[in-house]
């Protein structure tokens, strides 16, 4: 999976959670908790969706690593390569 | 044997005869019972209800009175206080207004004003209603006024069974009871009821139905049942409630029915303004508002003194067509 494909998946799943703001338009290094007004339920839903879509399990301890679009893409790329 | 008992071999009886049998039965059962009123003796009663009773029971117990409602109603109250069980007949509800002071200020209040010491076990029967071309001094339906007064029990027998069965429990009641007999019911015939007294606390569902509840009493019951037949022909199942007791109202039966059908129409021969129909409508609003699917409908007499000419009298009274229209209005277009 290319970095671009992963980015598309991440933005896609974020978009499902927040129809109000388009995640494609926020900066890659913006904290989604601020930029998209994500709360812990949204983060958990994002983790759940990414797990389902990509088969990558993100343990709770790693949640801080996916709080930006760039961070999430890098983390998922790393994990899918390792898997 | 009196003339208008049912012919041998039939078991039909008139409403008039049912009232007479009820009086006769009470006179036989309880020596304290006596009947008094205008023309109840020698003339046999204005509506011939007491015809023959003078011969059977004598002038001590079937007493003709002067034309003074206030006097003989007051005498009835005194007799009741003295331990008798009087039945006072007032010729028509219009004339009862002459005795209003005795009924409302004395009969209805004495128990309360005596601190519970004096009951007034009085029964007053009177004719009510229009339809016999007796004009405005004899044809009004003022029972709703009496239903306003605490201390009175107000009954409206609409069937032969109730005409036969309500008098005895009314006499047994320790407090004043008014019985309203609609003039158009006297000639109705029906099966001979047994001697059993009837309940005088509950309304009766005379015809079950699921689409609309039509609440009525007394002389309007036959017209309402006719209207229900007409509605049934169009596939509308009307539930017809006969109030029977105008005070205290049996709210439970009315409200339970309205909760089922979600629609109510009240048929009351009285005038609409400040009427018993208004009271029932208000109670439905208070207790079943959230169950309603339509505004409560009312069919009442035109707000005019009851006219004398037949066509105008009929036009002023609730008729089955109007009841059907009011019931349909609660259902919307079909």
């Amino acid at each position, binding site marked *: 999976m290319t970095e671009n494909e992963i980015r598309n998946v991440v933005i896609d799943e974020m978009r499902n959670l*927040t129809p109000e703001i388009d995640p494609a338009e926020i900066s890659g290094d913006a904290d989604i908790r601020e930029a998209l007004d994500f709360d*812990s*339920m949204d983060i958990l839903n994002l983790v*759940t969706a990414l797990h389902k879509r990509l088969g990558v399990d993100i343990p*709770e301890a790693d949640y801080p690593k996916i709080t930006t679009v760039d961070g999430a893409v890098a983390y998922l790329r790393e994990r899918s390569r390792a898997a | 044997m009196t003339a208008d008992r049912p012919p041998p071999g039939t078991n039909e009886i008139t409403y008039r005869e049912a009232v007479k049998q009820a009086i006769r039965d009470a006179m036989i059962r309880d020596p304290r019972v006596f009947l008094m009123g205008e023309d109840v003796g020698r003339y046999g009663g204005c509506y011939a209800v007491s015809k023959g009773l003078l011969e059977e029971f004598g002038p001590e117990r079937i007493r003709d009175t002067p034309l003074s409602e206030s006097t003989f109603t007051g005498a009835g109250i005194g007799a009741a206080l003295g331990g008798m069980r009087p039945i006072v007949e007032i010729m028509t509800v219009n004339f009862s207004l002459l005795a209003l002071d005795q009924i409302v200020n004395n009969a209805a209040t004495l128990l309360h004003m005596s601190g519970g010491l004096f009951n007034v076990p009085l029964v007053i029967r009177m004719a009510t209603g229009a339809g016999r071309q007796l004009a405005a001094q004899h044809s009004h339906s003022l029972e709703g006024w009496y239903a306003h007064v605490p201390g009175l029990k107000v009954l409206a027998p609409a069937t032969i069974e109730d005409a036969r069965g309500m008098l005895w429990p009314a006499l047994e009641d320790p407090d004043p009871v008014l019985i309203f007999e609609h003039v158009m019911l006297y000639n109705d015939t029906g099966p001979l009821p047994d001697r059993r007294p009837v309940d005088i606390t509950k309304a009766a569902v005379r015809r079950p139905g699921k689409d609309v509840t039509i609440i009525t009493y007394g002389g309007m019951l036959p017209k309402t049942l006719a209207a229900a037949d007409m509605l049934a022909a169009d596939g509308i199942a009307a539930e017809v409630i006969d109030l029977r007791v105008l005070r205290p109202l049996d709210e439970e039966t009315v409200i339970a029915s309205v909760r089922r059908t*979600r629609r109510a129409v009240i048929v009351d021969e009285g005038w609409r303004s400040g009427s018993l129909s208004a009271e029932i409508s208000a109670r439905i609003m208070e207790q079943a508002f959230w169950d*309603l699917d339509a505004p409560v409908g009312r069919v009442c007499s035109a707000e005019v003194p009851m006219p004398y000419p037949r066509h105008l009298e009929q036009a002023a009274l609730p008729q089955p067509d109007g009841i059907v229209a009011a019931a349909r*209005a609660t*259902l*919307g277009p079909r």
Partner: protein
Amino acid sequence: MPSLGADMAAGKLVEWLKKPGDAVRRGDIVAVVETQKGAIEVEIFETGVLSETLVPPGATVPVGTPLALIVGEGEPARARPTPPPERPIAPAPPTAPPPVAPPPAAAGARPLASPAARRLAAARGVDLAALTGSGPGGAVVSADVERAAERAPAAARGRIDLAAMRQAIAAAMARSKREIPHYYLSTSIDMTTALAWLEARNADRPPAERLLPAVLLVKAVALALRRFPELNGFHSADGFRPAEDVHVGVAIALRGGGLVAPAIRDTAARPLDDLMAAFRDLVARVRAGTLRSSELSDPTITVSSLGERGVEGMLAVIYPPQVAIVGFGSVTRRPWATDDRVEVRPAVTASLAGDHRVSDGHRAALFLREVDDLLQSPERL
């Protein structure tokens, strides 16, 4: 031209009793006017000088027409007022007879629906505005709602109207602060054990089965309420009525503002996984605008949790007719005194706002302590 009777539309000026330049005093009679009721004297209510008559004798003018100009003492003469536009004197239109049944609602107003239909629609989550009525005057009746509810049991109610929600919040909160004598208590709860338990529990589960700390808090409140019925129920004009079951309303903020607190029914009786699923479902449906109105009216108490990005504590406002609300601040790491030592521990500040008409601080304090106790042994939740 003064109105000299409710039914007077116009009058004829018969005679001036003062002429321009005359001084006039309040109460003077200045003119005579003829009406259908006869000649009537016109009194003046100002003091000054009559500078100009505007209506000549013999003229008939509508009520309200200026008849003359009065100049106050020392006041410069004013410009002549423009006469009112000519209006035809027509008889009032006949009044319409009173309607026998209520007229149908005007377009754009709330939908015409019977009381029974409204109650049923609220209970079944049916949008009345979307229905075509079969009742009197086209009103939606209960049968219409029943049909609609059967047709689409899970029909979406559409997006939440934020402006309407703001109004509803405003009304409820204003009423709360106006009517409910609030009292407030708060306590700090050590979350070390609860979070460690949660972390261990979540560690070997896939994301879909993980729990959020909020669920522990909600469950702890629900369980504790079983022993404190005076905090769980409704206050009405008839006084307080405790609820038989605990339906905790969870406050859920909407992105873009607004807040709803739908109920998780039977909160105390449901296992954590079940609660988490219900919570998730509620959040999703709040955001999608598909809540059922019964979920909004069911709560017997509300729990508001600020989540990880909020502040330390909150003093919440009770949502009437409920009688209490529990607020949880963010779980933060903070200095914690224990055995004469200070450690850094994760802790949460729990607060309670109670209705003083129904409950008192002492019992409420015991309740908060029970919540604390339960969170110290999360396996009991």
